[in-house]
Structures are given as structure tokens and as C-alpha cells.
């Protein structure tokens, strides 16, 4: 881990304002923020570890446990709400048997909700990894999940 972290740190200045970008890079590398990496980030940005914890828990983006191989994000924005986004979420939850923030037992899927992905014209929308799906029909959800990712 040290080598990877050093490589991440080499792209930043070790100052306070680099903290969030450093954490973002760590998460891009590991999929979440491992505790050792957060401590290393604290030393690098010269802040107390508790500060790193405080900042990272404030933002919705940061995760503290490993995520599944595929990230499913169901949009719950206004347009999606009006167009049936809650139904889509219910269906994904029941199909995968997990709630937002959880990962399936086989480690294949992590489910998250997102406040708006700005694809309002395609509502209801969901994102699987990097693929955006628009006008999602609840009955087509398994197809989308099976079709993308590993």
C-alpha cells in the first residue's frame, strides 16, 4: 500500500487544501478509504487524523468499507421522483436483496442512491458503473444489471 500511496501523494502538495483531492485519489485506487490510508493522508496533509475522519464523513462520496465490483446508483432527483424513480429503487432493492449503502453477499453489486445525475430528460434514470440508463422500466432492471459489469 505504501508504494501506491506515495504515488498518489507525489501528485499533490502536502497542504490542507489537498486533503479532499488526496482522499478522492485514494478512493479511486481502493474503491473506499482504508483506515491506514486515511492516517497516511493525515500525515501528508499535516492535519490530525480526526480531521480527516471529520471531513471524509461529511461528504456523501466517501466510503469506508470495500464496495462491490459493480456500483449501481439509482437517481432520486425531482424529475425521477415525478416519473417513478421510487419504484425503480424498490425494484432494484428487491432484486438485489440489499438496501442503499449495502453490498450483495457475493460482492457483485453495491447499491447507492444519488440526489440527481442531471439526466432529468431521461427520467427515471440509473447508473451502473459508467453506463447511464434512461427511462428505466422496473421490469427491465435485471437485464440492465446482468448486461453491465462483471
Amino acid at each position, binding site marked *: 500500500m505504501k508504494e501506491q500511496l506515495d504515488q498518489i501523494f507525489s501528485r499533490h502538495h502536502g497542504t490542507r*487544501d489537498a486533503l479532499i483531492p488526496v482522499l478522492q485519489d485514494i478512493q479511486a485506487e481502493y474503491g473506499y478509504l482504508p483506515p491506514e490510508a486515511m492516517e497516511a493522508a493525515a500525515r501528508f496533509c499535516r492535519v490530525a487524523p480526526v480531521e480527516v475522519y471529520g471531513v471524509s464523513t461529511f*461528504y*456523501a462520496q466517501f466510503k469506508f468499507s470495500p464496495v462491490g465490483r459493480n456500483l449501481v446508483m439509482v437517481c432520486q432527483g425531482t424529475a425521477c421522483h415525478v416519473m417513478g424513480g421510487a*419504484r425503480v429503487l424498490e425494484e432494484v432493492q428487491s432484486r438485489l436483496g440489499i438496501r442503499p449503502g449495502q453490498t450483495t453477499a457475493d460482492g457483485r453489486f453495491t447499491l447507492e442512491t444519488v440526489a*440527481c445525475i442531471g*439526466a*432529468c430528460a431521461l427520467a427515471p434514470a440509473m447508473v451502473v458503473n459508467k453506463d447511464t440508463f434512461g427511462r428505466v422500466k422496473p421490469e427491465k432492471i435485471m437485464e440492465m444489471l446482468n448486461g453491465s459489469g462483471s
Partner: protein
Amino acid sequence: MGAEASKSKPDIGHQVLVCRGTGCESQKANLIYSNLQDEVRKHGLTGLVEVKFTGCHGLCQMGPTVVIMPAGTFYCNVQPEDVSEIVEADLMNGGHVERLLFVDPKSKEKVFDYRDMKFFNPQRRIVLRNCGFVNPEDIDDYISVGGYEGIRKALRMSQVDVINEVKKSGLRGRGGGGFPTGMKWEFCHRSPGDQKYLICNADEGDPGAFMDRAVLEGDPHSVLEGMMIAGYAIGATKAYIYCRAEYPMAYERSLIAIEQATDRGYLGKNIFDSGFDFEIKLKLGAGAFVCGEETALMASIEGKRGMPNPRPPFPAVKGLFGKPTNINNVETFANIPVVMTKGGDWFASVGTERSKGTKVFALAGKINYSGLVEIPMGTPLKEIIEEIGGGIPNKRKFKAAQTGGPSGGCIPASHFETPMDYENLTQIGSIMGSGGLIVTDETTCMVDMARFFLTFTQKESCGKCVPCRLGTKKMLEILQDICAGRANMRDFNQLMELAEDIKGGSLCGLGQTAPNPVLSTIRYFRDEYEAHIINRECPARVCVDLIKFEVNEENCKMCGACFKACPAEAVTWVKKQPAVIDKDKCIKCRSCILACKYHAID
């Protein structure tokens, strides 16, 4: 649009514009683009036909879209396998692929030139002037349509003259506040300080607004140019774009734009030999709605929790890293190059007396054509919905339009003619906000809508001040009780009291505006609240706890739509008989209610 943006190159016969905004890209626009390049090469059209990818045209509903210029042929819902037909029929033989043309919903006639479409025709594109026409990843394309002329002109003027020009334009902040941009710049310009900062707020957090995303994805250089002009005017040499984490494509294209502008020497030391230094850094947000608030945004850039601070001191005096700072939003910056090249007077000639220029609205929800529309300030809501948006689908009735997202309110049918500008919207209890415009019809429950927004603001409240932290929670609990049929009128009165207290007592805009959706729905749809509380009924049949899931035999037209829609086989129906719902099998998914056109399920 069009005339201001498309500059045809004489040596090229056709331009094929492939939209690769988030909407179209999600439907394989990348494949359409590469197929077009292959087909053009295969048919020996290289050099005669230019295939170009662009940002969003705005009509996301009909995506993926391909536009052939200069004819203006607009192909909708294009699939990758349609490409060879487009190349052969249109580009080689001068015809059209008729089945892909847009069909006017009223006249049922095919439209050959997008400029004749009711969606585009009434629009006036200033902010979106280049979106859909320039390649957002090519600085030369932006330059070819007059890009970076505004900053060149500004650098020949004094800082004060630039500010005066912006003041003259009457441009007001497009992020939601509506504060006059020129005045904001003047404060920061006059504020003493060795280092000043400029920030572009691209943390477009309002669910339902996506114009800033579209501008950064479709025309990022116009934002950079706007920022350069602002930086010069106020004397800021360092700038940040704070972009939402949920917009990876906007981030990517902004990054490319900054790199290209830096390579050209448009950013960096001594830009355009003026002696003015200017650099832009891109910061990626980490998912916190409150960071759209300017003091919270600055805390986030500094690497802290994104919590707001009391003002004064205002950012113009003590902002980022304690230095004078000016913050404007993406759409505001995208207007600036035009204000410089065409002049403040020209800009002020568009719009109403106190709201100048245009506004981009993100039109979505229960509307036939959702997408981005840019209209002169003062255009009536009715025209946006009925003409540009093509009306409400499925012959349902317009109920209300929600503007300003979780900080805004709704505009009911009784105000359908309201000219959309800052003053009018405030007067009827809504706000311009960042420009989200969500259309609802009779199947939308306004209490549920208010609950939806409070769920959002309660979750996004940063927790710093008590009225917002606890007040939004209590309000949400009451709203949940109302939707579940557990509330009484005393709770309802408490809801209104809380709303006023939170409005007056919260530290930042998030809390101060969080009660707006509740107050505004109560103002116009009090009867719906009362139906939930007194009659234990949800008139729109949205709040599941209040729906009986019984067929109303008087209204039932025996069409069987509910039978076909039910995924749980809970509906029995035989022809010429009213349907029956088996409550043991019913999973309360509301599919039958959505399918029923006759309001026959109670």
C-alpha cells in the same frame, strides 16, 4: 439559435453534428459517432463531409440526435445501425431519412429543418449559443465561432470599464440569487488585498437542474473566457472551478479545455501580452448539496467540511483562504463573453425591465419534450410548456410547475400566464433558482412533492445551525405523518409555524429556503393537505398508505388497462366487466393507477 453560432466553412460541404452530451451518450452516441466516421471514410467523403461531435442540443427527449448542417436536418432517436442510411440517403444523394425526422405533434407533419421546430424556434440562445455546434474538446472550434474575442476586447479596456459594461448589461446571477453581477464584481474589485480569487460555482446541486452540466459539457471554453474577463476586472489571478462529483463528463471536458487554453498561452502568465496573469484550477466536489452555498463551497476548497459561515464578512472582503473572492455560477460566466463582444446595451435589450437577457431552464417531468430551453426573460410559463415543451403527455392536465428545486416553489395553473422573470416568480411565492422546471400533472401529489424536497434538504442539512438541523427533521416527520394519514390539523399548523421559524432563523440559504416548497404547496394546494389530513385521502393517488386499491365501478370503463399493467396478477378482469383487485395479492406498486386513464382506482 443557429445564426449566432453556426459558421459554415466554405471548403466543406456538410457538417454532421453528433450530440455527445450525457443524455445522448447514454444511448450509444459514441458508437453513432464512430460509425459515421467509418462510413464517411468508406464512401470517400473525407474532406467533403466533416463529422463532429458536440455537446447537448437541448432536446434530450429525442436523443440520440444527429444534425446535418447547413441544411439543419435533425435526426431523432438515431441508432448506430441507422448511420449507413444517413450517409447514403442524405449525404451522398441529398435526400432525407424520413423515418428519423422529427414529427410535429400537432400538425403530424415531418420537420425538415430544426429551426422550424416549435421546440427550437421560440428559443433565444445566448448561453447555449455554441452548445450542439462546437466540438467541446477543440479550442480551435471555439475560436472559429468568435471565441476568446471577448477577453481580447476586455484586456484593451480598463478594469472599471469592463465592470461598467457588465453593470450596463443588467446581468444578474444565474445560480439562484439573482444579485447583479456587475455590482458583485465591483465590490471585489474595490476590496483591498494582495491576492484575490475567482470561483466558478459548478456545484449544480438542485435536483432537476442540468444546464450548468450541459454548458460545461458542450461549451467549456465560453466559461473559461467568462472567468478570464471576470478575473481581469476584479484583479484576481487565481481561479477555481468547483465541479460536482456527479458530473464526470463535465469535469473531464473542463479539464481538457483548461489544458488546451494553457497550452495556447491563453491561461498562465501574461495572457494575450497584456501583463495579466490568470490560472484556473479544477476542483471536484465530493457530494454535498450545501457546497453550492458560497461560504460552504470555499470551506470545501480549503479542504474542510463544507459548512457555511455567517456573512458578513462577505466573500468579496474575506473569502477563500481569507482573501477577497468573487463567486459566480457557470451560466453567469457563459453570458460574459457575449456581454463583452456585443456590448451591455445589446444584452440589456433582451428580457424584461429588471431581468435582462435570457434564462436556461431544464424542462423535465410530465412534459412531452424535456430538455434544455433558453428563452428571453419574461416569456410566459404557458409558452414554455405548451409550445416549446409540446404540452403534457397522455392527455393529462397541467397541475403545477416546480421551479428553483428544493429552495423554490410551485406555479399552479392559475398563474400559467406568468412571465418568467426574477420579480414575478418571487411575487407568486416561487423563485427563479438555478432554472430547474419540473412539470407535474394531476397524477402528482403536491404533499408528496413537498415531502420529497424536505427529505432532500433534511438529508443535506449540514447540521451547523439548530433551526435547519432539527427544524427540517421535524417538518419532514409531520409531512410523513400527513402522507401516511396519521396527522391532524394541529400538526399542520405546527408545520406552518416551523416553516416560518426555519426561514427566519437558519444560517445559510439551504435552511432559509428549505420551507419554500412546503409553504408554496400549502398556498396553492391547501385542499390537498386537508384531504390527506381530514378525509385520509390522497386525491392524486400517490401516497400508498391512503390508497384503498379498490376499483371504483362508477368511473371504470372496463378497458382492462389495469389488468395488463399489474405485475403481481392481482387484477382480474373480463371484457365488459369492471376489474377487481385482489388485496392479498396486491403489492401496492401503483402500476394500475398509472395505467388507468379514468381515475377509477380509489
